[in-house]
């Protein structure tokens, strides 16, 4: 069980602090964030995040360092989210044409663009979507994403470029529709 304090793992002085609860508090935003940005369903994302931490609890003895812990959490969360999305078919299929009519505020306010981008990301194919989430939420380099997802570096680059091309095209269509309705 999680009886080894995390600080021991990094070579720091030993303290009588619970390690597993500390790991949850330190990394729950990362785990839940990946799950939410990928799945766009709060309940499902929380269930997934809980499952990840429960698996961590079971596998605690295999964690070698703080860095290994973060890598392990990202890897397990990413793979489980992809598997879950494939089983549940959660990603809404959104074509270039099928976009909602923007309101006046949505055309003008940056935060609504962010919301729109979130929805567009959620409509990407699973692997492209996870590459985008890991790149922009976690600020990972292509090589790091490749390690997490077990892909080749060139495959990650391909997924990333295709995803960005698709997002730019969808955003351009949305902006054009907004401008046309204003003029």
């Amino acid at each position: 069980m999680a009886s080894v304090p995390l600080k021991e793992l990094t070579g720091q002085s030993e303290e009588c602090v619970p390690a597993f609860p500390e790991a949850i508090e330190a990394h729950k935003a990362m785990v839940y964030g990946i799950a939410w940005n990928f799945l766009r369903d709060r309940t499902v994302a929380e269930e997934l995040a809980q499952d990840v931490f429960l698996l961590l609890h079971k596998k605690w003895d295999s964690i070698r360092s703080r860095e290994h812990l973060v890598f392990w959490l990202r890897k397990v969360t990413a793979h489980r989210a992809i598997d879950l999305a494939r089983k549940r078919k959660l990603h809404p299929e959104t074509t270039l044409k099928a976009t909602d009519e923007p309101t006046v505020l949505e055309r003008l306010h940056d935060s609504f663009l962010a919301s729109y981008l979130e929805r567009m990301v959620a409509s990407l194919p699973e692997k492209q979507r996870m590459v985008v989430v890991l790149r922009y939420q976690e600020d990972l380099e292509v090589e790091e994403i490749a390690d997490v997802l077990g892909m080749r570096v060139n495959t990650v680059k391909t997924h990333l470029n295709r995803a960005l091309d698709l997002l730019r095209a969808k955003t351009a269509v949305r902006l054009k529709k907004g401008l046309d309705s204003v003029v």
Partner: protein
Amino acid sequence: MNGMDEELRRALVRRDPSPDFTARVLAASQTRAAEPGLLRSWLSRLLFGRWAAVAATTLIVGGGIAYQQHERDVQGETAKQKLLVALQIAGMKLQGTQRHVLSGGER
């Protein structure tokens, strides 16, 4: 860094789960830690799992057969008793007839 990159970084941020998330995870981890070991778990499944249905069916069928046998036994015993009574009655009548015959049929 182009505009799309910046917009995506602003859109895809880390988020906090519900406030009781940590407590729920810890509670669930403690529940799992308190679960019985493999052998006990297997025995529990044997007793209370699918095998329970098989055992219950066997008991019901066996009980039905035993009940039917009991019914037959009861019926047999009843018939035996009736036969004995009938034989006694027949015997008594025969004795009466015999006395009548031996007495020369006097009235």
